[in-house]
């Protein structure tokens, strides 16, 4: 029997029964697509189409269609790559780290968050591939495969190669963790389809559910697998963004070559990731009427994590500024002087406002329990985090050691177009997920329903046939 404190906020409100849980979440998969979904898909497909055109031009003409130059060799491409990878980390944190910490509130949000991770990592991966120019060569040349160049091997000392292993492992493990969690829910949809007489749906979800029957022995193994995957994913998520940060930290460029990057990037990733989860879930819960599962309490807890990680990021900024002065290294000092009041100061101060000031507003209870404020601030945080990566990359590159090489960077339509492409890709994938897959983990919610629902906190056995529609 599970014990839960009677003074904790209920995690599932509305007096739900097991049948309610199956119904509330499966019905969105079972129903025909509604006009709102069609509209959303149309918009995201339009973005995807425009972006895809830009990608085709890039692959045909070459990387010269971007605004890069000899001085600023990385700009929007790598900014966007780090931005998307960072966003992906929240999903794994919710799935894996909160599981290890036994935070039951993760259960209504982990499925959507993990889906977000997978789609974000796919979007992120498009950037290193596209920035290679000849991606049809680049993508397998990055792997240590035997070849006819005397078997020329990859450089294992380079963080750029560590990234290849890290991102592919992260994607694969996240995908597997997410899918294993989906299997019991696919079985629920399959069995509901059998009862409802929907033969095609039953056949499709039968295949997707891999013959799941829900026996106690299989559940026991499933929980073991979930725990081990969570234990593996936790160091994985921390290591992946650490490795991404090392793309910069292991260089010699002032403003990049600093040991604060690994923890600073990881905290920043979680910060932006939670903001994106909030943006997506606030809309999803409204459209799918899941307010009883993703409650204000869940939103508040996520906002608290945003305060924590936002504060870490803020402290990191201040530390960087301090060390730039205290170290006495003139190049480091100039790099930060340039950030604060050089030609890109507008980007730096946007970053500071969005990332340092806005999360601190969540200390006020009224703001962190307000849906509108949370939605607005979550978008502001993501904008701020984009600027952070832009500032780190472009301001450090555009003025480094040799003043005669100093120049400005200006994005072209294709820089922006690739970014739009990834938005189109991400939202198309997310809306497809929301329509055809159950967005909340039904099995996990059912397992905590008795202990943590507003009705169940009294510990009474459920009555037969009492459903609320």
């Amino acid at each position, binding site marked *: 029997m599970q014990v839960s404190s009677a003074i904790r906020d209920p995690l599932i409100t509305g007096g739900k*029964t097991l049948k309610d849980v199956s119904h509330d979440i499966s019905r969105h998969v079972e129903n025909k697509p509604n006009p709102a979904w069609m509209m959303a898909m149309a918009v995201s497909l339009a973005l995807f189409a425009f972006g895809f055109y830009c990608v085709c031009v890039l692959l045909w003409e070459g990387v010269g269609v971007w605004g890069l130059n000899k001085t600023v060799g990385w700009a929007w491409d790598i900014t966007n790559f780090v931005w998307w990878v960072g966003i992906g980390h929240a999903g794994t944190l919710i799935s894996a780290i909160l599981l290890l910490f036994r935070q039951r509130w993760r259960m209504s949000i982990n499925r959507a968050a993990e889906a977000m991770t997978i789609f974000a990592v796919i979007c992120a991966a498009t950037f290193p591939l596209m920035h290679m120019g000849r991606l049809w060569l680049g993508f397998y040349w990055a792997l240590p495969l035997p070849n006819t160049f005397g078997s020329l091997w990859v450089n294992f000392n380079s963080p750029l190669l560590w990234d290849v292993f890290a991102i592919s492992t992260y994607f694969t493990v996240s995908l597997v963790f997410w899918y294993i969690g989906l299997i019991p829910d696919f079985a*629920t949809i399959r069995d509901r389809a059998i009862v409802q007489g929907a033969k095609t749906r039953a056949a499709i979800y039968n295949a997707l559910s891999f013959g799941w029957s829900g026996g106690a022995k299989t559940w026991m193994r499933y929980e073991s697998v979930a725990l081990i995957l969570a234990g593996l994913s936790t160091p994985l998520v921390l290591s992946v963004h650490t490795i991404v940060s090392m793309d910069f930290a292991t260089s010699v460029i002032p403003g990049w070559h600093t040991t604060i990057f690994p923890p600073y990037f990881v905290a920043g990733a979680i910060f932006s990731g939670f903001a994106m989860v909030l943006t997506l879930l606030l809309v999803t819960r409204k459209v799918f009427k899941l307010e009883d599962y993703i409650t204000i309490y869940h939103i508040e807890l996520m906002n608290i994590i945003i305060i924590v990680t936002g504060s870490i990021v803020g402290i990191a900024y201040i530390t960087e500024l301090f060390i730039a002065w205290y170290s006495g290294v003139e190049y480091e000092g100039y790099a930060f002087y340039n950030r604060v009041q050089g030609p890109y100061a507008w980007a730096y101060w946007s970053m500071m406002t969005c990332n340092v000031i806005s999360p601190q507003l969540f200390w006020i209870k009224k703001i962190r329990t307000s849906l509108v404020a949370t939605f607005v601030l979550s978008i502001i945080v993501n904008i701020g985090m984009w600027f952070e990566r832009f500032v780190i990359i472009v301001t450090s590159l555009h003025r480094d050691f040799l003043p005669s090489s100093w120049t400005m960077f200006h994005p072209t339509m294709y820089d922006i177009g690739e970014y739009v492409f990834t938005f189109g890709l991400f939202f198309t994938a997310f809306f497809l997920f929301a329509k055809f897959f159950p967005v909340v983990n039904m099995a996990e919610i059912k*397992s905590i329903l008795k202990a943590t629902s507003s009705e169940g906190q009294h510990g009474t*056995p459920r009555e037969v046939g009492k459903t609320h529609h």
Partner: protein
Amino acid sequence: MAANKNFLVGVFDDEDVLVDAVKTLRAKGVKIHEVFTPFPVHGLDEVLGYRRSRLPIAAFLFGITGTSLALLMQFWMLGFDWPMIIGGKPHAALPPFIPVTFEFTVLLSALGMVATFMIVSDMKPYGKPRQFDVRSTDDKLVVAIDVDVNKAQDPSAITQLLKDSGASEVNKKVFDDQH
């Protein structure tokens, strides 16, 4: 084979009632075939007498395979096959090899363990599983008892025992196919 054909299926609504019922049934010597639930029930595998899963051991073994392969690969490629001086550093040094080694360990461990899980649980995307009660993935917790394995007990005695332990229904289930 006479076993795996005739079953008594006890349907429960509440997981705590179920766990107590399973305890009672086993105390009375009834052999339970399996219990099907829509969600994992804590304490159920202990009362059913299931041994702890050995999947973590599999994960560990796959993991050390990954570590070994990754280290072997890197040391061979950069240490023996085509040694190169990169950045004035030694041909093959352990510190820069750690990230790839770690990632490969995690990859093989996760994939290997999940594949093992699916194989031992007989999970495949084709064919249909044996359904004792189609509501067992929705809102009912279902106890399946093989009548032929429990020769010492009378089916009606088992039925009564299930009802006394809190089952809301007790049904008979016969499988014609040999699974």
